[in-house]
C-alpha cells in the first residue's frame, strides 16, 4: 500500500484537566500512529477509550498535553489545512435553526467555493444522503438518522482529501449503513483518505484497510486488517459437500497424512473476536503496550500467538 503519511501522530498524550489545572482523566497515553494516503483507517475501542479525543486533537479542538501531530503536513492548529478536511462529529453539532440547504450553503461559504459550485455541490450531496424531501425543513425537526445524514453531507461539502468520521453509521438504518459503506469505499477509490471510529465491527471490517484498537487511551493493536486477523496456528480445509463416510475416511486419511488437499487456507476470524480478545487481554494485563513503529513482522506474530488461546471452539 501507499506509504505517504497523511496523519502522523507521535507520543500523543492528552490529559483532561479541570479549571484549576488539576488532572481529571488521562484520555490518551503516548499514542503513535501513521495514516497513509488513500487508505481507510478504522479506529476501534470501547467507550471512553479515546477515539473521539484523538480526532478532536487532530482538528485542533483540543490541545495535546504532550506529543506532536502532523495532519496533511501541517500542525493541528493550522486552519489552512482544514480546506482539505471533512469532519463528521460524533453527534452532529449543527445549527438547528437552519434547514438542509442553508446548512450546506453556510458551510460551503467557509471554503473557497463559488456560489455556483456551492449550489451544485449541495444539490448533489442532498441527493446523495437522501434528504431531498426534507431539504427545506429546519434541522431541529430532523430525526437522529436524518441529522447524521446532513452531518455527513456537511463533512463532504468541500470535496475533502482527508475525511474524519466519528461513528458514521450510528443512528443510520440498514440501508443508510450500507450506503455509508459504499460511500467510504467510493471515496477510497477516488484516492481519499478516510479515518473512522466505529463500534460496528462488521462494518469496519468490510471497509477498512488498516485498524487500530485503543483501550484506556493506549494503543493495543495496529495493522493491516487481513494481517491482524490471520490465524497461523490453524489450517482450514474447504471441500465440496461430502458424505459422512467420506468425512470419516478423510479423518483416517488425515491421520495417515496422505490425503490430497482440496483447499488449504489461512482462515480469518471476525474482527469481533479480535476486538473482544484485545480488550480482555488488556484488562487482564494492564500497561502492556503495543509498539507500533518499524517492527511490523514481530507485531503480527504477537497477535497471532494471542489468538491461539481460544482457537479450538
Amino acid at each position, binding site marked *: 500500500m501507499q506509504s505517504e503519511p497523511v496523519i502522523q501522530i507521535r507520543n500523543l498524550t492528552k490529559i483532561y484537566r479541570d479549571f484549576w*489545572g488539576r488532572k481529571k482523566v488521562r484520555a490518551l497515553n503516548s499514542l503513535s500512529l501513521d495514516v497513509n494516503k488513500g487508505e481507510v483507517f478504522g479506529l476501534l475501542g470501547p467507550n471512553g477509550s479515546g477515539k473521539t479525543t484523538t480526532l478532536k486533537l487532530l482538528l485542533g479542538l*483540543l*490541545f495535546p498535553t504532550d506529543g506532536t501531530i502532523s495532519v496533511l503536513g501541517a500542525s493541528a492548529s493550522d*486552519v*489552512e489545512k*482544514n480546506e482539505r478536511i471533512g469532519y463528521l462529529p460524533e453527534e452532529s*453539532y449543527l445549527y438547528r435553526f437552519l434547514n438542509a440547504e442553508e446548512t450546506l450553503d453556510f458551510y460551503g461559504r467557509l471554503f473557497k467555493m463559488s456560489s455556483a459550485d456551492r449550489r451544485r455541490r449541495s444539490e448533489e450531496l442532498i441527493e446523495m444522503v437522501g434528504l431531498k424531501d426534507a431539504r427545506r425543513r429546519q434541522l431541529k425537526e430532523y430525526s437522529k438518522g436524518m441529522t447524521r445524514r446532513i452531518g455527513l453531507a456537511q463533512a463532504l461539502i468541500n470535496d475533502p482529501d482527508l475525511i474524519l468520521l466519528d461513528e458514521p453509521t450510528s443512528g443510520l438504518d440498514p440501508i443508510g449503513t450500507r450506503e455509508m459503506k459504499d460511500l467510504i469505499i467510493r471515496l477510497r477509490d477516488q484516492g481519499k483518505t478516510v479515518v473512522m471510529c466505529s463500534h460496528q465491527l462488521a462494518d469496519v471490517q468490510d471497509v477498512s484497510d488498516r485498524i487500530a484498537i485503543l483501550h484506556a487511551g493506549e494503543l493495543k493493536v495496529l495493522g493491516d486488517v487481513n494481517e491482524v486477523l490471520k490465524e497461523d496456528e490453524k489450517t482450514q480445509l474447504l471441500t465440496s459437500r461430502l458424505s459422512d463416510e467420506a468425512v470419516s475416511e478423510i479423518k483416517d486419511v488425515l491421520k495417515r497424512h496422505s490425503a490430497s488437499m482440496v483447499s488449504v487456507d489461512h482462515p480469518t476470524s471476525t474482527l469481533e473476536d479480535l476486538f473482544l480478545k484485545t480488550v480482555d487481554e488488556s484488562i487482564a494485563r494492564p500497561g502492556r503496550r503495543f509498539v507500533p513503529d518499524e517492527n511490523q513482522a514481530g507485531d503480527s506474530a504477537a497477535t497471532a500467538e494471542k489468538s491461539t488461546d481460544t482457537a479450538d471452539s
Partner: protein
Amino acid sequence: MSFELPDFSLLRAFGHWALIVGALIGVAVLLSMMTAALGGGQLGFLRAIGSLVRGKRQGGLPWGEVKEAYAGVFRGIRDAIVEIVGMSPRRVWALGMLTFKESTRRKALLVFVIFALLFMFGGWFLADANPRADLQVKVHVSFVLTAISWLILPVALLLSCWGLPEDIKQRTLHTVVTKPVRRSEVILGRMVGYSCIGTLVLSVMGVVGYIWIVRLVPANAQSQLVCRVPVYGNLGFLNREGDPGTGVNVGDIWEFRQYVEGASKARAVWEFAGVTPKVMVTRNIQESGETVEVKRLLLETRFEAFRTHKGDIKSEVFCELFFTRNTRDQAARALASCPGLARIGGMLSDGDFRGAAIVLAEAKPTPADFEQFEAGCRDFANITRPFLSGESKSEASEAVLQAATDCANAADAGSGEKLSASLKTFSGLLDTHADELSRRIFDLRVSIPAFEVQEYQLNLLEIDPAAFQAVVQDVKTGNDVEREIDLFDDIVDNGKLRVEVSCVDSGQYVGAARPDLFIRTPDRPFWVGFSKSIVGIWLMMELVVILGVTAGSLLNGPVSTFLVFGLVLVGGTGFRDFLQTIVAGQSRGGGVFESIIRIVKHMNPTTKLETGVLTTIVKGVDGAITGMLWLAAQIIPDFRSFGRVLEFLPNGFDVSWSTALLPSVTVTVGYLIPCLLVGYFCLKLRELEQK
C-alpha cells in the same frame, strides 16, 4: 444647552488610545512571559498557581521548556498579526449572516412589539404637556430618542453576550472551526451579524420615531422642529475699568456664568472666528407691498440678570450689544508685547502715536529679545496692513508698514544694528505721521438698540448687517464724517468678529457663559439632526456589541451580560471620572503600601518617610499599583460621549460633529481593534472542547 463644550482633538485622542493599547499589550506580553516561565507551556500559569497553592511544586524551572514557551509567546504574537490581517471578508460575512439568522430566529425582533406599544400609547401622556413650543418639541424628541436607545441597548447586550457562549456550549462552533475559519473571523463575524440586526432594528425604529414626532408635535410647535447650527465664540471679560479680566461672581456656587456690572466699562466679549457672509440667513420681509429677500445675521442670546437692591429690584434689566473692530487696540498690544515697550500699549490705545514714537526710540533690544520683537512687529504689520495699504493707501502709510516689516525682518536676521536702525526709522515715521495714523488706525464700534434680558428663554436678534452708521475722521482732511458701516466689510476683520455685551442699568448685573451668545447660521432640516442622533445611538449599540462579543469569547452568557452591563453603567455615569480622580489625585499618606507602613509605624500622614531602599521599593510598588489602576480606569469606555450626542436635538440644535459625533466615533472605533485582538486570543487559547 447648559453644558460646556469640550474641545476634542483627534490627534490627542489617538495618542491616548495608542498609549493605553500599547500599555495593555505590554502588560499582556509581560504576563504571558511570566506564565511561560512559570508553567513552561499553555495554561501553565494556572497550573503553576494551582500547584503552588497545594504546595506540590518541586524542582526548578525546566529551562528548555521555558525557552520553548517564550518562543511560543512570540509565535502567538506573530500569529495574531497574521490572523487579523488575513481575515477573509467572505467568511466574515457568512458568519455574520448566520448570526443574523440566529438572532431573528431567537425572536429578537419581538422588540418591535414593545416599541409599537410604547409609541401607540406614549402619545397620550405627552400631548399638550407643556404650553411652550420649544419645550413640547423637547419632550417629544427626547422621548423618542430615549425610548429607542433603551430598547436597542438591552437587545444588543443580550444578543451579543449570549451568542458566542451558546455557540460554544452547544458545540455548534466546533463544526465551524473544523472548516478553514480563523478565530478572529468568528469574532468579527459575530460583531458584523449583531451590527446588521441592530442596524435593521434601529433604522425601522428611527423612521417610525421620526414620523411619530412629525405627526404628533402640535401645530404651534411645528416651526420649532429645526436644527439650529450655532457658531460659538470664545468668551472673555473686561472688568469695570475696561481692562481684560474676569467677570463678577455673584455668589453662585456653580461658576457657570460670570457677571458684568451695569453702567460700568465691564463687558462680556465674544470673539468669533470664521465669520463670512455665509453665516447669514435669508429672510423674506414686506417692503412697500412687495416681498423681498434680505440677508440677516442672527444672534441668539440667553443671558441671566442678577438684580440687587442698589438698583431697582423689580424692573427689567437691559443690556447693550456692540460689534467692535479694535484694530488700534490690537496693534497697540502687538507692539506692547515687545520687551521694554509695555508702556506703548496704553498710549496707542488712546491714540497717542507721538508718545509711542518716543518710547519706541528709546528701545534697546538685546539679542534675547529679538524673537519677541520679530513677533510683535510682524503682528503690528499684519494687523494694520488692511488700513495702511490697499485702495486708500498713501506714501506715509506704506512707509510705516514697510518700517514695521523691516524691524521684524531685522530681528529675524538677528542683527542688532539693523534692528536699532529700523526701530529709529519706525519711530520717526510714527512721530511725523501721527495724525494720519490715528485717522487710519482706530477702533470702530457700532451697537444695536439696548434690549431687555429675558431669562430662561432664547432671545433672537435679527441684525441687518448694512444698517449701521458711525462717525469717523476722514483720512485726508481729518474732518468728522458720518459713514455707512457694513458689518462684514468694516467690522469683521479676517473672519474675526468681536461682540461686546454690557449691562445698561446701574446696580444690576448681566450673567453670561460661552454658549449664551452664538451666531445662528442657516438651520438644517430636522431630519438631518434626527439622523445624526440615531447614528449616535447606533455607535453606542455598536460599542455594546463589540464589548458583548468580546466578553462572550471568554465568559459564559450571564457573566458577560453582567460585565458589559456594568461597564455601560460605570462608563455612562460619572464613576469613571471618580475613579480617575482617585488614581490621579495625590492622596495624602501615599499609596497602599506606604499607608500600611504609616499605620503600622503610627506615622502622621504629613511626616516624610526616611529615605532608604525600603522607601524606594514601597514607593515604586505603590506607583506600579497606581499605574495599573489608572490603566484599568482607562479601559472603561466613556459612554457619556454618546449621551452628549443625544442632548443636541431635544434642545433644537444640530448635532455637532466635532464636539459630539466625532468623539463617539472614536470611542467605538477605538474599541474595535483591541477587542478583536482580545476576542481572538480568548478563543484561540481556549480549548473549545474543555468546559
